[in-house]
């Protein structure tokens, strides 16, 4: 990858931002989702994304940035996250996250691993591999959900594909620290 420590920290900090965002999104959905099985599905995954954020946040501290430091993603990718989080239907929420956003996030983690020096950047690689290991379980949980609640279907059948396409279109997901600071100040 040939990136500086700071550039690596920016990527890891961005991954942490995304994990915290997903943790909070699931938490926000829980009280407004009627179906018990969906509530507990979201509830169990809150802890997964919290753990991912925690591992990544420990790593930012090792990469000469503060511990548990997050970097807001580039504007385009942030809009993808916000669009996905704005879903109101139960299956739009569940499938928007699992079928729309997470495959793209997984691809970004794999891309990081493929491009970095696995020896030099081994601690980051191990964290991402642990996250990818969790993603397999989350994917299995998602695949099992229709059998638990076969009555729940997408009202908007194209929603997950649109989220996936939006995410794929945003090749640059890491913003510069200065831009992120300016955005935070403005908001």
């Amino acid at each position, binding site marked *: 990858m040939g990136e500086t420590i700071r550039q690596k920290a920016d990527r890891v900090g961005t991954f942490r931002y995304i994990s915290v965002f997903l943790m909070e999104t699931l*938490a926000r959905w829980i009280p407004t989702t009627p179906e018990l099985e969906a509530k507990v599905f979201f509830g169990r995954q809150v802890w997964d994304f919290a753990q991912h954020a925690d591992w990544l946040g420990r790593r930012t501290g090792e990469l000469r940035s503060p511990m548990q430091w997050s970097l807001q993603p580039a504007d385009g990718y942030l809009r993808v996250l916000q669009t996905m989080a704005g879903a109101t239907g139960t299956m739009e929420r569940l499938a928007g996250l699992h079928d729309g956003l997470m495959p793209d996030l997984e691809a970004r983690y794999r891309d990081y691993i493929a491009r970095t020096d696995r020896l030099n950047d081994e601690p980051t690689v191990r964290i991402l591999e642990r996250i990818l290991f969790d993603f397999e379980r989350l994917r299995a949980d998602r695949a099992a959900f229709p059998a638990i609640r076969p009555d729940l279907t997408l009202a908007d059948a194209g929603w997950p594909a649109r989220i996936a396409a939006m995410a794929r279109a945003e090749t640059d997901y890491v913003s510069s620290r200065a831009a992120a600071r300016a955005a935070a100040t403005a908001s």
Partner: protein
Amino acid sequence: MSAPADRTKTVNGVVLVADPAREPCFTVVQTDAELQDWPDMSEISRRERLHRHMNNETGAIEIAARCLVDFPDASWDLRMSLARQVADESRHASLLLRRLKELDGEKGQFPVANFEWGVTLMLDNLPGRLAVQNRTFEAGLIDILGTMRNRWREVGDHETADLLEGILADEVTHVRFANRWIKRITEEDPRNLLKVAMAVRYLGQVLARLEPKVGETNAAGSTWTEERRLPPAVNIEDRRAAEFTEEEVAEVLRQAGFRSILPSLAAGN
């Protein structure tokens, strides 16, 4: 007290946050009098106990989740504990639903109430919410689970007793992290103690207005007696494990008329 972001409802003159989303199969009621519960351990009583507990765990998921959403600037350690609590309570609700179905029950079979959500979400600060939800409601659940685990064993249902034993162990950790965090923030800034005290006082005022009175009858025809209104026996061992101080345990014992679960009863389980 204020809940600016939430819709509210008024129950017997008390303003509470409106109910979280529930499926149409559930009948959501507002008072204990509208609930169905039976003091014995008959089959229908067992199902109702599991059903009510399942909804209470669902409420606990929702409250902890809202704490994550409403207080993004809380310390990361505390947010991790809240996230873990969300997952734990989700597991509990799933376990109770599974057991309910095994005992031929189903979702929506009995009315449910979301009192804890309605009260806790009225509080606009995290010390207050943790004082009410974790240190009061969940600590009360430690006492109830200690008693109920023993009652299920007495009627020969060890599977449910084991399930409750597992939930009890988790609840101890939820109360403990809240105790530790409240202790820390009140030491750092004594003004936080005022938030805790105001929250507990508010809860007391709400309970005084909404608790069932002796002689009232619930939807199952069961009458509230002085004995039924007593708090459950105090689970001293687990309250200590949750890091309540000896003074706090003594105060709860006094309120419960010094009734306690003997450690020897729980130790064999």
